[in-house]
């Protein structure tokens, strides 16, 4: 007989006991632990998600900050560039101005020096020219020329204008000084007398006349009385010529 009823009952009993024992020692504890772990993991996941969210927020915050910083950085850089450019421009302008000023000063200095040089040059030229002319004229002068000069001088004395004569007369009357006649050459007695006569007639009245020789006059005769002077000499012309030369020559040279 394959079926033993006692064994069947015993096995049913055994099986029920095993079910109860395993339920107590296996299924319940394990399911409980699994549930706990599931909860734990779920909590951890939730926590992790929360943390991740926070981290994401932090990331976006820092990204934003970074962006702002970058923007500020760029702005500052731009500002600095502008400032540098402005400063550069200003400095360039200043430098240019300074250079121009220096250039101007330098130009002025050059001009001044040039002018001084030209002035002195022209002066020297004219001086030398006239020294030469004077010498030539002095050497050329002879008795005939002297007589001629004397004549011209006497004629001028004779033909003085009325108002000029009156001025001379008034001045001579007030003055105590003697009337001086200077000449480049020694005047002959006849000429001296003639000059005394004409001058006396014109404005001197009875005042005495002194005669002097001065080669600087260059072929000329000069009459000085009470601060007034009546001259005829080549020196006068030469001086006029010299003035014209000195005025005109530097301009011509600088041109």
């Amino acid at each position, binding site marked *: 007989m*394959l079926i033993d009823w006692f064994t*069947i009952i015993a*096995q049913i009993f*055994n099986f029920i006991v*095993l*079910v109860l*024992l395993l*339920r107590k020692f296996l*299924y319940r504890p394990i399911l409980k632990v699994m549930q706990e772990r599931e909860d734990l993991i779920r909590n951890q996941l939730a926590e992790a998600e929360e943390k991740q969210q926070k981290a994401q927020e932090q990331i976006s915050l820092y990204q934003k900050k970074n962006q702002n910083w970058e923007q500020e950085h760029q702005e500052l850089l731009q500002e600095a560039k502008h400032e540098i450019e402005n400063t550069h421009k200003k400095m360039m302008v200043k430098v240019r101005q300074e250079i121009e000023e220096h250039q101007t000063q330098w130009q002025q200095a050059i001009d001044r020096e040039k002018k001084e040089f030209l002035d002195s040059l022209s002066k020297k030229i004219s001086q030398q020219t006239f020294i030469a002319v004077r010498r030539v004229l002095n050497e050329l002068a002879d008795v005939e020329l002297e007589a001629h000069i004397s004549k011209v001088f006497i004629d001028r004395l004779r033909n003085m204008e009325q108002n000029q004569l009156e001025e001379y007369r008034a001045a001579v009357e007030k003055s105590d000084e003697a009337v001086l006649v200077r000449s480049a050459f020694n005047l002959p007695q006849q000429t001296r007398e003639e000059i005394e006569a004409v001058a006396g007639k014109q404005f001197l009245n009875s005042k005495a006349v002194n005669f002097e020789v001065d080669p600087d006059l260059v072929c000329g005769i000069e009459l000085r009385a009470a601060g007034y002077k009546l001259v005829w000499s080549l020196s006068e012309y030469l001086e006029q010529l010299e003035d014209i030369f000195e005025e005109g020559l530097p301009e011509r040279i600088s041109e």
Partner: protein
Amino acid sequence: MEISPDGIIYWQSGWFKLNATIVYTWVVMALLVLFSVYVSRKLTSDPKKITRAQNILEIVVINVRNQIRDVSQQNPDRFMAFIGTLFIFIAVSNLMGVIPGFRPPTGSLSTTTALAISVFIAVPFFGIATRGFGGYLKQYLQPSAIMLPFNIIGDFSRTLALAVRLFGNVMSGTMLVAILLAIIPFVFPIIMQAFGMLTGFIQAYIFAVLAMVYIASATTIQEKKLNQAEEKEDED
């Protein structure tokens, strides 16, 4: 050679007899309970401190649970102890058949009958617990009253089939190895034993799943009706 371990009687006193079936059942029970107690003492919910033994048991429990859920489409915790124990007991008994001298208790028609009777009792137990006494009995009249005898015959026949299927498979496996040992004593019996382990495991699975299917069929109809009723209430 005894076909069933029932025949091996170690001790007898009147109607009480201690045969190999009962003794080896106790051995399997003791192993299972001791291992469970040993593991459950060290259980931890911390994923970093799980022991290997806990891991093995968790895998078993999770898989049994998932199978129950798949088959029954219901909350598995209610059936966990019954179906899980069926599976673990049959599987361990069959696998231990590999040990020389060990007579798997499932190779006894008394044991398989006892398990089949347990299922036979468990089906109305869970059915009545879920849908009530009347509700459970009504299912014998489905789809019509004519089907009542066939339903009852079906209940008995499937219980008988459960018992005989498991007994036949395990007994034949043990017998086959014993016969082969006599004919070709080397190597070949080992292959057959390995094969026997596989069939033993499959039989445990089949037994547990069929038990679950029977229980589920006794409980799900009610839930469907409840769902329909709830839907009607919602519509109203």
